[in-house]
């Protein structure tokens, strides 16, 4: 961002604290505001929550009749990730930041955090002190958590856009005013209101623009308020957004070079100890069932050789999809989503048994090698996706007469 822009942005640092309506959001916003004032002394800070109508931001002191602690606020849970455009508070945050001439703005989850970690400083300092334009958060989690990010979102976006963001759909974000203005003027708000403002949309704009981006490790991920979803629902919600951004930026990512590292702040890595127990056997049975019953749908998406490889993997002992096969499957589903070969909801739901089949092998490896081997495993998945780049580009360019 040009220095002149930051100097003219003389307003307060603007924070949108987002969470479910019943989570004492106004009180949480007051805490976050105090935290930011302590971390950036001498700077004005305003923490807002989403208004009752779900549109526009209200300073936390004005929420619930001016009494902090009143439950009144946002309607979405950014921690869940994969936030669709209409539900996202990003548009309201951008407008408010523009109105207040904020020198930095951030979307922050309203859930409580672990004490003793400067997560807000880690998120905002690259904008305020290091002159970055976009900060993507990353969280310390057990490798068994966020398997969809490990299996698809991270390696696919890394391979396509050529930048290595570990958790692209983290939900939170920090932006510079110049980037905010560019986003606010983007025609997608009018042309594609269903997707504009989603977290995948925001990250894709940062990855394909000229802005300086970085990622910051913010410590352990705050727990989402809502119960975890079924894998098929998460696939439809999050992967639909990611595939849509691949379609939007196809001319750009097809020319992207090999993946480059992104400037990273904070201490990363996985949480030690026992994570959630993933039932590898049940996941393996899900793949076998899908292989038996969903051949008709998969036949519209995958090539015969890929289907044969899946059949072999489902019949093997132990059942598992290897990384190159998995990467090819995901690339083929992305092309089918773009070519509208199968209705998008049905397409993404039909990916579930394949995802669980991959997860079966991943779970077994985690049990065997523990947290220590997880980093190497992620490197192998990324390498497998990189190997499928030519396949993806070739199939994407000739989608007419989609016959796998």
């Amino acid at each position, binding site marked *: 961002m040009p220095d002149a822009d930051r100097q003219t942005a003389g307003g307060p640092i603007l924070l949108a604290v987002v969470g479910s309506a019943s989570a004492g959001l106004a009180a949480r916003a007051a805490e976050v505001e105090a935290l930011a004032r302590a971390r950036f002394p001498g700077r004005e800070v305003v923490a807002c929550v989403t208004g009752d109508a779900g549109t526009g931001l209200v300073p936390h002191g004005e929420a619930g009749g001016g009494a902090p602690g009143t439950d009144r606020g946002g309607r979405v849970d950014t921690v869940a990730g994969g936030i669709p455009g209409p539900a996202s508070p990003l548009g309201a945050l951008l407008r408010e930041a523009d109105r207040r001439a904020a020198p930095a703005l951030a979307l922050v989850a309203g859930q409580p955090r672990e004490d003793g970690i400067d997560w807000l400083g880690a998120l905002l300092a690259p904008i305020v002190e290091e002159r970055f334009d976009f900060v993507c958060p990353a969280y310390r989690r057990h490798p068994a958590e966020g398997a969809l990010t490990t299996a698809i979102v991270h390696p696919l976006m890394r391979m396509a856009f050529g930048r290595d963001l570990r958790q692209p759909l983290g939900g939170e974000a920090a932006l510079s005013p110049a980037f905010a203005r560019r986003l606010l003027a983007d025609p997608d708000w009018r042309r594609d209101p269903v997707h504009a403002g989603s977290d995948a949309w925001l990250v894709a704009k940062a990855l394909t623009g000229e802005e300086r981006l970085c990622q910051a490790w913010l410590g352990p991920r705050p727990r*989402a308020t809502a119960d975890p979803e*079924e*894998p098929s629902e998460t696939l439809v919600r999050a992967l639909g957004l990611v595939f849509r951004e691949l379609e939007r930026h196809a001319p750009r990512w097809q020319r992207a070079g090999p993946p480059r590292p992104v400037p990273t702040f904070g201490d990363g890595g996985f949480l030690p100890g026992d994570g*959630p127990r993933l039932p590898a056997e*049940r996941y393996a049975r899900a793949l076998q069932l899908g292989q038996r*019953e*969903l051949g008709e749908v998969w036949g*519209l998406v995958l090539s015969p050789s890929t289907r044969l490889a899946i059949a072999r993997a489902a019949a093997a002992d132990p059942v598992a999809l290897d990384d190159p096969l998995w990467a090819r499957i995901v690339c083929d589903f992305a092309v089918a989503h773009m070519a509208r070969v199968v209705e998008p909801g*049905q397409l993404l*739901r039909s990916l579930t048994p394949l995802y669980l089949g991959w997860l079966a092998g991943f779970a077994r490896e985690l049990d065997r090698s523990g947290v220590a081997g997880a980093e190497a495993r992620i490197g192998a998945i990324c390498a497998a996706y990189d190997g499928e780049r030519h396949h993806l580009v070739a199939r994407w360019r000739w989608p007419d007469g989609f016959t796998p």
Partner: protein
Amino acid sequence: MWDETGRIFIAAFRRTEEAIAGLLPGLLAMLAIVLAAVLLAILVRRIVRRACERLELDRRLRAWGVAPPPAEGRAGPSHLVARFAGWTVLAIGFLAGLSVFETSTSSGVSARLLAYAPHALIGTVLLAAGAGLSRVVERSVLIGAVNMGLQSARLLGLGARWLVLIVATAMALEHLGLGSTTMTVAFGILFGGIVLTLALAVGLGAKDAVARSLERHLPPAGEPPPARPDEHDVHHL
């Protein structure tokens, strides 16, 4: 005798001539109507074809699983719809042409057929829509059942498809006014039978899933919580 025969022959010939002369204007009028109907059918067919292409009907129906993938020698859905629209216009034009004749039989038949045409058309549309919807429902139920881990997923999908088909057929037949009482009874028996079959299939196929769900939400009394969180506590994103 030869004179008499000649006279009768000429009289018969004249009567035929007069009859033809009487029919000729009607025939010409019918030909004109049929010709107009042919032209209108060609026009309607082209308009419908173009509208279907503009709406990407083929792609949408294939995406939803209503139509099979394209294959050589197989007409696409938009082609069939356009052909159906053209033939419908032609049939109505032919019936309108028949009604030109003032004979009681032809005008009566054509009038009854013309009055019946809207019912037949709506019945056909109901049946076609039901057939299409049944395929969408079948695929959605199949995928959903597989994701729930139900072993009888294909049976469920097939059952759901036949349910929709039977409802659509019953509605179409009722609209056509064919065997209304018999159809209602047959529909009730068939529908009830399929619902019972599906309920048994879900009950038997999903008992493990139900048991797991109950264990998760209603753990046995006195049992300590699990030391490690399980799959139900995992956020996939």
